[in-house]
């Protein structure tokens, strides 16, 4: 007879490291941030006074906070939606017998392993107003010079392209892994029935990889809600001016995470920044939840 204690306890021991780390670096900061957010708490003052929900009151009336929320959602939609469509399509293309299969798959992952700094610096040059490659190509088809960083919509597009560049291939690989688990017989039967490639994608592949789609949607949404490095670096390398953390002089591309960073690490108002990051956390949970419910409803023609 085996030790019942062993069989009962050891599973918990195996998972304990995760929960210990999560407690120390996840849960504790979460609650401590909530505590800080109830105080007038700046880096430079020795004393912190309890002020209840006052930070939240100020925050909800703060136009810059809502501006950042709008920018985050806008960049989120602009980057996530095309990215998912594109990555499913790429995965579909790779999910067949190809020469140099491994080469293609690895090259999908390359943009993701590039440093985000390098990506933003290079894309800022591509999106340059005076000597940028994209404006030059557009001028060939008669489109005038676009000041990408200056406009609200144009800067969101530029940032979305950078985000898509990094994450499309990564998501495509996840989709590809899921697609390879779809039984071949379904496709064979469909081919016999005369279904085209596109119909097979729509009617077989997508319904079969639904759990993966839900997973990717949730993870991409959360990632998109927390974008900070791209707008921060775009601000300094685009020549449009504005402070390091303001996301352009009109805050036209300041995201929520960047706003939190501004309040915490340039204004040094930790109380207010904590309140902002708590509201941001709630927004992320809310948006991720909505997307979860929406993507669960994804159905193909199979069902």
């Amino acid at each position, binding site marked *: 007879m085996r030790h019942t204690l062993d069989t009962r306890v050891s599973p918990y021991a195996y998972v304990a490291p995760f929960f210990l780390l999560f407690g120390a670096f996840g849960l504790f900061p979460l609650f401590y941030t909530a505590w800080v957010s109830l105080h007038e708490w700046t880096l430079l003052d020795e004393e912190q006074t309890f002020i209840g929900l006052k930070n939240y009151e100020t925050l909800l009336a703060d136009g810059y906070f809502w501006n950042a929320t709008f920018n985050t959602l806008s960049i989120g939609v602009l980057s996530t939606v095309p990215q998912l469509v594109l990555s499913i399509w790429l995965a579909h293309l790779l999910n067949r017998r190809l020469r140099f299969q491994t080469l293609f798959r690895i090259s999908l992952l390359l943009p993701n392993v590039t440093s985000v700094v390098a990506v933003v610096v290079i894309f800022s040059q591509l999106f340059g107003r005076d000597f940028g490659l994209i404006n030059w190509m557009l001028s060939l088809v008669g489109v005038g010079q676009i000041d990408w960083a200056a406009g609200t919509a144009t800067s969101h597009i530029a940032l979305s392209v950078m985000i898509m560049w990094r994450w499309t291939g990564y998501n495509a690989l996840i989709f590809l892994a899921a697609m390879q688990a779809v039984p071949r017989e379904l496709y064979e039967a469909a081919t016999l029935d005369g279904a085209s490639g596109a119909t097979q994608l729509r009617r077989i592949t997508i319904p079969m990889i639904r759990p993966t789609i839900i997973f990717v949607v949730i993870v991409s949404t959360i990632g998109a809600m927390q974008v900070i490095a791209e707008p921060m670096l775009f601000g300094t390398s685009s020549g449009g001016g504005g*402070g390091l953390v303001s996301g352009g002089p009109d805050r036209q591309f300041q995201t929520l995470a960047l706003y939190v960073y501004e309040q915490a690490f340039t204004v040094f108002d930790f109380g207010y920044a904590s309140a902002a990051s708590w509201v941001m956390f709630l927004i992320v949970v809310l948006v991720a939840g909505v997307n979860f419910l929406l993507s669960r409803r994804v159905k193909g023609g199979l069902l």
Partner: protein
Amino acid sequence: MTSRFRRIAVPLITASALALATAACGGSDTASGPASDGAAASAEKIQLKVGLFGDLGFKPLYEEFKKTHPNVEIVENITQFNDHHNNLVKRLATNAGAADVEAVEVGYISTFTAQPQKFHDLKQYGLDKRQGDYLDWKWQQGLSKQGGQVLGLGTDVGGLAMCYRKDLFKKAGLPEDREKVAALWPTWEDYIATGKKFAAADVAGAKFVDAPGEIFRAIVNQAPTGLYDPQDNLVVDSNPDVKKAWDLSNQITAEGLTAKLAAFTPPWNTGFAKGSFATIICPAWMTGFIQEQAKDATGKWDIATVPGGSGNSGGSHLMVPKQSKHPKEAAELVDFLTTKDAQAQIFKEEGIFPSIPALYDDPSIQSFTKPFFGDTPIGKIYSEAAKALKPQHLGPKEADVRTAIGNGLGRVEQGKQTPDESWAQVLEDVKKIK
């Protein structure tokens, strides 16, 4: 049930974990390392860290210093301007990570002299003897708020001048000679009028000025009172000189004279190389920038007097944080890096202009020229500019206020707002700065 729970719980937990990763981020610092590993290796060897926001031309001087201090190793660490000062605020507050010698630009000097308990009083190391060397106002800026403690020793001053491209002026039919160019613009209104002439000539690929931001700063610095009154009250909304600077800067935008290249960004650097603008406001330290960025433009740049009279823009102090484990050596290094000879040498190499008036009439400075600027008497121009300087009181949040106003100018430049709308928002933003 369980699978249903998991389907909801897993994304939620992931969401919390990822959200927190952001909430907790931002504290990472690449610069911090073992503070004194030199000291650990042997009892005598020590390491001094020097924290700068740009190359102040100290490198050759470190070697000199080591000759008299063979046990000292010096590590220089250069960070981007805003990051450098923000990090210093953080490191002082958390009592960890500051270098032994920290450079502080005038825009931030009052922020730090208001916290004398965080720095060593250099008087303890006999550096009050240096007072006689300095421009009086430069010396005063380095003292603690209540006076009495010597917290920082000045490095340079940024007397104002105006740099211009001779070749572009020629193309636009404007004079090239620096006396005649100076005669074009006794006032800022004249400067704008000259700009209009330049624009009318339609020189391909070139605007009159890089951006209005530094011009705004220069005009404010020329006034007797700037963004703060001597009692440290913000006077942005009530000082007519600030509003005048705002209006003039926006007029430059309205007349289409700006290349819209914000200073110290990569496109601004490209602008130098491509000759995208014909004039740039030019404190002494800017000459080093021009030379570095416009490498193929030898002989094309010249320097004239600035419109609107003398003023100062930029300049730094060196301070020794209380955290330093080797304050004696750090103070000796500060002394060494700011001596008359050191400042003269730095000027000749980097264009950073001394804050020691005895040098201004020194023949080697007066007659100093640089191959890049042709026969331009750089030494003479900046000596005169520095002699004519009138000091201006700088307040504790000078840099933050300037950022808010800079954003305002940017909004007008990018066509987002009218100058009046933007000014209203600037005043709101400034009110929030505590």
